[in-house]
Structure formats: structure tokens, C-alpha cells
């Protein structure tokens, strides 16, 4: 008991010394306060959009078009103003949170699962299998993602399914690389070798003994890459290659408001601000997770 007490201040001091924040700020490193403050409202918006949005998704009249936000000459009726079609910006941004969460979530799970499986196989089997998978990952990283996405949109037209497939494809390589690196270490562990000697099959070893060991890595890569996914989705939607128009994707909202920048800045600035805030929060959260769960990834990511 006495020992435990003495170690705590020592640990505390080490943490403080390596801290990068100025002394007068709260310790943002121990808990990702900023991220939570930003992400919680967006999470609520995504989950309960119809309950929290003041107006319906496509509700509005052209006589209310491009009303300014509150504090910029607007009223409390439309806190963030209205868009070029007279729809409430706040409501559309709230519904947009849903789209963002859905697209990023599905793409993350699909790409993450595929990449993790590839990483497990590649790292554990080694040899030519490893060689082939890693070369494919290399090729994936040298492809100009946006241009390939545009080409596929040209061929198949823009749709949600295509967007999800593209984003999952964008995402799997990072998982494969990092998981493989981790598996290379785990593979040499005594408990894995013992399992092999005991006669466990390769799938069993991978699932039961190695997979739990890479979960931290998977969690960190997921948190770090989700911001990039949201940016990619927003970029494609902005270019008109993402989700087709009536759906309130933040990227396409920014694009449609852009034409009115000289007179009504809020129509494009507000949805873009939502993207920026969420990605900043996720980046901070990702850094925090990495330092917490897997400090070795620091040099790589």
C-alpha cells in the first residue's frame, strides 16, 4: 500500500515533464476534453436528428431564402440562417451529421475488417503471401484516390454504395500495414509458439491468440483514419462525386452555398465549419488514443 502511494507522484511527475501544453491550460493530454466537448453534440445530432432538429429535413419556403444567422442580422427562428432554398441550416447540418456518421462508420468497419484480416494473414504466413499483399498495399498508396473515385463516378454515376466502397478501399491499406507489423512481433511470442506446438490450427492461432493482441493497434488506426475518411467523403461530395444532392451531406451543402459567398457566407461556411470541427476533434482524439494505447505507432503515423 505504502509502495503504491509513493509510485503515484513519480508517475505523475514524468507525465507532467513530457507534457507539451503550457502550464495554465487544463491537462488536455490526460483526457481528450476538447474532442469530447466537440463530438458529443454531433453524436447526439447524428443519433437523434429528427428529435433535436428544429425543422424538417426539406422543410422551408423560398421566401425565407438566405436569411442570415443569429448575431449577423438574423433571428432565433433560424440560428444558423437558411440556405439558398430557404431551408434551416442548423436542421440540415444536424441531419448531415447522420450522413457523415453513417458513411464514415460503414466505410471504417468494412475497410478496417478487410485490412485487419489482410494484415493478420500477411504478417503470420509471411513468404510470398506477405510479399504479394504488401505490394498491393504499396500500389494502393500510390494511386491518386480522388481521381480514381472521379473515374468510377463517371462510369457508374454517383451513389451511396459506390462512395462506401471507395472509402472502404481508401481505408484498408493502413490497417493491413500496421496490423502486419504488430503480428510480426506477436508471432515470435512464446505463447504463440506453444499454441502451435500444442497443435492449434492456423486460423485458431490467428483468431484466438494473435487477433486480441492487435486490437489496440486496430483501435488506434481506426481513430486516426476516421478523420481522413470524413475529409475524403466531404471532398468527393463537394466535387459532386459523393452522395447525390437532396441528401444533406456537409460537402455538397458547402458546394451549393459557395455560389452565394459574396452575399451570404453562412450558406457555405457553416456546413464546412461542421466538417472542420469534427475532423479536428477526431484528430485530437486519435493522437490521444495513440499515446494511450500504442505509443510505438508515434513514429509511423
Amino acid at each position, binding site marked *: 500500500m505504502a509502495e503504491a502511494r509513493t509510485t503515484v507522484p513519480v508517475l505523475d511527475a514524468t507525465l507532467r515533464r513530457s*507534457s*507539451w*501544453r*503550457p502550464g495554465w*491550460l487544463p491537462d488536455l493530454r490526460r483526457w481528450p476534453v476538447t474532442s469530447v466537448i466537440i463530438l458529443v453534440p454531433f453524436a447526439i445530432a447524428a443519433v437523434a436528428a429528427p428529435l433535436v432538429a428544429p425543422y424538417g429535413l426539406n422543410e422551408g419556403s423560398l421566401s425565407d431564402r438566405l436569411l442570415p444567422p443569429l448575431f449577423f442580422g438574423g433571428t432565433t427562428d433560424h440560428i444558423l440562417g437558411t440556405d439558398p432554398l430557404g431551408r434551416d441550416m442548423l436542421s440540415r447540418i444536424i441531419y448531415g451529421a447522420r450522413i457523415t456518421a453513417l458513411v464514415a462508420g460503414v466505410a471504417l468497419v468494412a475497410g478496417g475488417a478487410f485490412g485487419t484480416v489482410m494484415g493478420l494473414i500477411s504478417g503470420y504466413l509471411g513468404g510470398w503471401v506477405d510479399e504479394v499483399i504488401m*505490394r498491393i498495399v*504499396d*500500389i494502393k498508396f*500510390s*494511386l*491518386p*484516390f*480522388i*481521381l*480514381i473515385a*472521379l*473515374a*468510377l*463516378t*463517371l*462510369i457508374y454515376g454517383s451513389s451511396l454504395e459506390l462512395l462506401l466502397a471507395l472509402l472502404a478501399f481508401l481505408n484498408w491499406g493502413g490497417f493491413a500495414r500496421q496490423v502486419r507489423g504488430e503480428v510480426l512481433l506477436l508471432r515470435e511470442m512464446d505463447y504463440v509458439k506453444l499454441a502451435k506446438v500444442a497443435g492449434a490450427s492456423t486460423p485458431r492461432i490467428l483468431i484466438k491468440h494473435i487477433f486480441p493482441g492487435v486490437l489496440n493497434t486496430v483501435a488506434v488506426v481506426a481513430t486516426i483514419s476516421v*478523420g481522413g475518411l470524413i*475529409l475524403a467523403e*466531404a*471532398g468527393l461530395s*463537394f*466535387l*459532386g*462525386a459523393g452522395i447525390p444532392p437532396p441528401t444533406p451531406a456537409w*460537402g455538397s451543402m*458547402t*458546394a451549393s452555398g*459557395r455560389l452565394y*459567398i*459574396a452575399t451570404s*457566407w453562412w450558406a*457555405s*461556411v457553416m456546413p*464546412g*465549419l461542421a*466538417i*472542420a470541427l469534427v*475532423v*479536428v476533434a477526431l*484528430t*485530437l482524439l486519435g493522437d490521444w488514443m495513440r499515446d494511450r494505447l500504442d505509443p510505438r505507432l508515434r513514429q509511423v503515423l
Partner: protein
Amino acid sequence: MKRFLVRRAFTAVITLLAVTVLVFVLARMTGDPRVLLLGDQTQTSQEQWDAWGRDFGIDKPIAIQYVIYLGKLVRGDLGDSILQRRPVAELIWHRLPNSAQLAGVAFAFSIVIGIPLGIVAAVTRGSAWDYSSRSFAMFGHAAPSFWVGIVLIFVFAVGVNVNLGLFEFKTDWFPTSRKEAGLLSYVLPGLTLGWASAGGQLRLMRSSMLEVLDAEYIKLARAKGASRTTVILKHAVRNAFIAPLTYAGLTLAGLVTGTIVVETVFAWPGLGLLSIWAVNNSDYPILQGIILLVTFAFVLTAFITDVLYAFLDPRIRFT
């Protein structure tokens, strides 16, 4: 070393081949170019239709088509645009300088922003300076570049009225798009794109500086009586500069992709706007040409970077 070079070159070639296969397969998926132009076959005679097929080279088996296609690529023939009926290479060549200039200006911005901030962050490690310069760079990376561009247009092109008591002015200093005010028109798009990649420069410069500042020769220089500024500028920065410099090639390649979005925002007549035009008009050959060019540029710079690294720092393990 030799083995490393051969292996690295092999990977580069494989990557390029994979891309040609990919764009070739996608090209076949776009369907018959004759249908795109005419709607369907009923508008023309069978002989005319077949002649067009020979014109487009789609009358032979697919494997032969690929070999012919590859042969043309090697000779720099990227095919013809479907709608404009001009060689794609010519169209790209015409637009390339605009994108390259923008990428160059953006690169300069990313260096000008990233390197000094990286030095400041490393020297004042753990302070408010470190914290805020890293936040600044991180924000540029996290905010979508099209949005940053729009905000910059609003603030510095549309202009905001500023009233500081004695001084009253409007901040409409820069044009919104190209060719309106010469060099000034490069500032906003360049800044938008450069800020986004400044984060990478900052992080590399910072970590490289921290490593160098920890070295014995820095301590020796200080012990000898050299001032802090001299040590930082003369001894540390010069040595720490190698890492961001080798990374520069990769940033430049990344910028080419980044220009697509930024060009759309600023109506910049480069490859990005050309590819958007191609998408909207279903002109696949143009898009294919741009994809090939960008990938080639990326693979080449990555290759050079790796080789450069291997020569500059032989400690790098060749795997």
C-alpha cells in the same frame, strides 16, 4: 545497396503496370465510345459503325488491345478526347503548367509556414508557442481545403470591413480567381493548399530538430560559448533540414492531387478543373490520362526520395 535499388525499381514498375491495367479495365467499363457519341447503332450504317470501331481500336481481342494501348503509352500517346477530338496529351500539356505553378506556390507556402514553425516548436518545446504552432498546422490539415478556400475568398477577396477607430478599410486585397491580377491571384489558392501540407513539414522539422538539439555537438557548441541563436540557426537547423527536404518530393506529388479540389474552388484552369470537366461530360480518356500522369509523377518522386534517402543516410536498412 544494389539489391535495394533493383528491388525498388521493380516495385515502381509493377505499380505503374498495375495502374495501366486498372485504367484500361475501367476504360472498357465505360462502354462503347460509339454509343456515347451517337446514342445507338441505328443512326448509322453497319460499315460506318465498323469503321468507327477500327478507328477506336475496339475491334480486336482485349489482350491485344491492352498491348497496343501500352505501346502507345510508352510513346506518349494517351489517346484522344471523345468530345473534343484532340489528343489527350495535348490537352493535358496545355493545362499542366497552371497546375504545376499552383503546386509550386503551395509548396513554397508549406515550407514558409511549416519550417519556421517547426523550428519554433522544437526550440520552445512544451510551451504555449509549441502548442499553438502545432495547433495551427494541425488545423490546416484537418479543415477541408475547399472550405478553407471559401473562407479565404470571403475574408480576403469579397472583403470584410474592418474598423479600428482611426483606420477603416476593407480586406478585399486578392482576386477570387486566376488571371485577374497576375501574381496576386496565386496567393489565396497557394495559401489554401500550402497550409494543408504545412503540418507534415512542421512535424518532420520539429522532430528532426529535437533529435539534433539533443546531440553532443550542440552541447559542445554551447559549452564553447556560442550563443543560443547561433547554435540553433547555424548548427541545429542546417542539420535538421535534411528530413523535410527529402520529404519534399512526396509533398509535391500530394499537392498535385490536392490541387483538384482547390482548383474547383478558385476556378483555376489546371488539371483539376479539366478532370471535373471530363467527369461532367463523360470524357473518360482525359481522366485516364490525368490519372496516369499523376501516378507516374508520384511513383517517380517516391522512387527518387527513397534512393536519395538511401544515399544520404546509409543507416537505413534495406528490406
